[in-house]
Each structure stands twice: as structure tokens, then as C-alpha cells.
């Protein structure tokens, strides 16, 4: 199953709706490209919507961390929206919930960037 990333702008936040599997290869490349494209347009407030991400492997987790670091180094913020239970559990066990700001509600997530 392939991964897709669709970007939309709400107020000052770029929301990337991800769908599919973030796994080594295509999935991680799609995520990396989506974030890189936004940074190229100087979009520094990025919200990754993982609500339709059915599966993420360790490489996908690594790409989330890389994206977070890359955006932060350029003065931006990257946050996560709508984790499935499985993805939430993976980020919890790897202690990455202490790193990422995570939201269940899109409106609250958007407001948090202000």
C-alpha cells in the first residue's frame, strides 16, 4: 500500500494529511519530500495529520524525528495530529511522546501555533 501526503493551509499552519503506511522506502520518502517542500516555501508551522496512517515502522519513526529536527533547525515547529492507538503506543514506548506535541483536535492544534 502506498503513502500519500496532501497539504492544505489553515490560517498560518500547513497541515499535511498523510494516508497509508510510513515505512522504509516510499513512505519515508513521501514524508521527507512533503516537509522539504513546505520548508522550501518558508512554511514553518507544520502539522502532520496521522489519522489515516495505518502503520509506521522504525524507519518511519526515524523520519518523523528527522523532520522534527529539520523543521526546528530552521526556526519552525512540527506537531502531530490524530495518532491512531498503535502509532501512539509506538511513540510512547520509544519515549517520543516527550518530544512531539500531539493533538487530537485540529482546531486546538492550529491554535497552539499562535
Amino acid at each position: 500500500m502506498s503513502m500519500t501526503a496532501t497539504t492544505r493551509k489553515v490560517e498560518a499552519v500547513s497541515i499535511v494529511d498523510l494516508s497509508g503506511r510510513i515505512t522504509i522506502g516510499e513512505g519515508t520518502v513521501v514524508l521527507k519530500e512533503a516537509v522539504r517542500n513546505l520548508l522550501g516555501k518558508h512554511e514553518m508551522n507544520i502539522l502532520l495529520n496521522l489519522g489515516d496512517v495505518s502503520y509506521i515502522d522504525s524507519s518511519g519513526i526515524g523520519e518523523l524525528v528527522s523532520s522534527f529536527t529539520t523543521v526546528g533547525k530552521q526556526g519552525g515547529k512540527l506537531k502531530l495530529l490524530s495518532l491512531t492507538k498503535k502509532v501512539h503506543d509506538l511513540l510512547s514506548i520509544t519515549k517520543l511522546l516527550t518530544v512531539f506535541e500531539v493533538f487530537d483536535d485540529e482546531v486546538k492544534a492550529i491554535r497552539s501555533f499562535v
Partner: protein
Amino acid sequence: MNSEDSVIELKIQSSLEYTDVVESLTNNLTVLAGCDPDQAYFIEMAVREIVVNAIRHGNQMDFDKTVQVHYRFNSERFAVEVLDQGNGFDFDHLPDPCNPENLMKSSGRGIFLVRSFMDDFSLNYIPHQGTEVKFAKKLSRS
């Protein structure tokens, strides 16, 4: 499924494209073993992580080197062995990805996740053969 162990073996060349084949087979076997959805998810994740490691880090993406995946399961236990043809690595000193100094690293979580979600896990380097990773999940019935 009868009470005898079922045994299946698969051998692939070192291409990440084949991980989907392995995943597909693993999915079919977890159904055959009667795994519940959570058990199946974690077993599939574990097999995928270890096979990707075997291809990338064990066999160094050398297409001509193979990865063997050996499944043995019954109604109580699902066990997997993965053997690569690499030169091994220092698995006694794998960094803990949850340590603050490693938290922001982009790799090094695969084996940690498999250890976390499986009931048994072992790594062994067999001279002149490669690294053998064994792991298993108990299939307790609720």
C-alpha cells in the same frame, strides 16, 4: 489447525522490495495460527523490522546474499528465526534509543521495538554463516 507445529521457510535475496512478500506471507501465517489482530500486528511488525535489518545492516544490501525466514507455530506460540549472511555486529552494546542522548537519532529503534513486543528474543552470530535472530510471541487466548 492441528496441534502439531507448522513449519514454513522462505529465502529471499537482499532487496527491500521483498519485504512486502515476507510481510504478506507472515500475515497469512498469523491467520493460520489463529492470532488475534494485536498479536498479528506485532508479529508482522517484528518480522518486517528484523528482515529489513538483515538486508540493510546484515547483508549490507548485497543482492546476492540471502535472508532466510523460518516460521514455526502452533496454537500457543508463534516463533520466527531470521538468518542473514553478514559479518555480525556488536549486539551486546546496542545503544538504548530511549536514552536522552539517543532520543533524537533517526535510527536504532528496530530491535528495541521487537524486544518490546515479543515474549522471547535472542541474537546470535554464527561464524561463517551470519547473524541469527530468534523471537517468539505467546498466543494466549482471552
